């Protein structure tokens, strides 16, 4: 049975350990999502490239290849489990010797890259649909006053798309906080890993994880409520 007494005792002894783990979880999440945003932007732009009849054949070919690669990336990463991706990326990278001098840092880095790659696939779809939700007439009007495609994006489309993207982006951050727990499997010292090590040291199998769950909850729950509240206010200001 779960014993409150044991939880208190574990926390008293290993509390700082847990907090360290939570700190690492948040760092890994922040860096992975940042990587995901950059990748997502690149991949979304890749997938949104239009083949135009005015382009020369070489450019058309390049565009078609880039578009195919970007689509393949998104579909493969969204249709396979994160934990499988983490294993494949982590073991193939370290297997061919792509390591830093410090083993802990190496682990951390590949963990972040694996989660970032996964998040990039999801975020590229978030970004793509956020841009797609801006009415087509906005782009036409911008091009009609002589703006280049890039200027139209910069001054007209993206400022409107960000309103659509931001809430989903924040939710992605919250999701990734939880998802990084799979990194415990490759030995990255985030919150779940700490709980696991405490469990094996103390031979207590439930309570260490209850504490981890409680910590995830204290971070994720208020954060997601906050995002929902901000989103509601933003929508209000759009409709006026």
């Amino acid at each position, binding site marked *: 049975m779960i014993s409150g007494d044991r939880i208190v005792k574990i926390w008293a002894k290993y509390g700082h350990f847990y907090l360290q783990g939570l700190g690492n979880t948040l760092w890994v999440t922040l860096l992975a999502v940042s990587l995901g945003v950059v990748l997502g932007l690149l991949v979304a732009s890749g997938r949104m490239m239009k083949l135009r009849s005015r382009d020369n054949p070489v450019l058309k070919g390049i565009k078609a290849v880039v578009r195919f690669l970007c689509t393949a990336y998104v579909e493969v990463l969204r249709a396979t489990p994160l934990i499988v991706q983490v294993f494949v990326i982590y073991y193939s990278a370290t297997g061919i010797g792509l390591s830093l001098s410090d083993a802990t840092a190496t682990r951390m880095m590949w963990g972040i890259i694996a989660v970032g790659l996964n998040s990039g696939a999801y975020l590229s779809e978030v970004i793509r649909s956020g841009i797609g939700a801006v009415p087509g*007439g906005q782009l036409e*009007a*911008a091009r009609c*006053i002589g*703006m280049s495609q890039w*200027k139209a994006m910069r001054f007209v489309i993206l400022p409107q798309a960000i309103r659509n993207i931001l809430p989903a982006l924040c939710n992605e951050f919250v999701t990734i906080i939880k998802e990084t727990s799979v990194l415990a499997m490759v030995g990255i010292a985030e919150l779940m890993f700490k709980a696991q090590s405490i469990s094996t040291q103390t031979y207590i199998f439930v309570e260490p994880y209850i504490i981890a769950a409680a910590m995830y909850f204290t971070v994720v729950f208020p954060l997601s409520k906050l995002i929902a509240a901000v989103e509601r206010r933003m929508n209000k200001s759009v409709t*006026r």
Partner: protein
Amino acid sequence: MSQDKLIQVKGLEKRFKRLEVLRGIDIDIHKGDVVAVIGPSGSGKSTFLRCLNLLEEPTGGQIIFEGTDITSKETNIDVMRQKIGMVFQQFNLFANMTVLDNVMAGPLRVKGMKKDEAEKLALGLLERVGLGDRGSAYPIQLSGGQQQRVAIARALAMQPDVMLFDEPTSALDPEMVREVLDVIRQLADEGMTMVVVTHEMGFAREAASRVLFMDEGVIMEENGPQEFFDHPQNPRLQDFLSKVL
């Protein structure tokens, strides 16, 4: 080539997949012309207008604007579009900008005009369309007629040589049609070259210097407004006018 030919359209064709929308359009538009384009829906008139600034890419023929073939791959269309203003049925004001910023956008972001200069220009234009006091509003706060007048000011801010209007009053409530047509008419009086796709026959008759009737992707009839409406030649035009007048 004659100096006053602003736009020459030669054998213009446009097809979407298997659907032929424009099947050979030839017309010269001179400086100061006010060309009204009328015709049943699906006749290709909007597509014709959108080809003039390459919003639609023609699949055949040439469009020569001020001596430059804009359908050529070597032509930088962004530069040409600075001289071709366009006003849409759905206004398409930039939703993320105030009215003033909408009108300033072109001079500021495209021409690289200084901010205070662009602002002065924009305020003058808003004054001209009767909205000098609404600069700080967002498009969503304005009525349709007001939005369309802002859209006209935004196009004028680039100081274009020709203005294209794509059914500028079709999305408006009836009581707002007038205020927009008044602005367009005033432009015509000032000598602006214009091509106006419209369903407003009264406007075409009074304000246009030439009227085109389009059907099935070709220009079926072209004439001065008086002749056009009083003595239509083509049976299709006679039929069309009997339905709409």
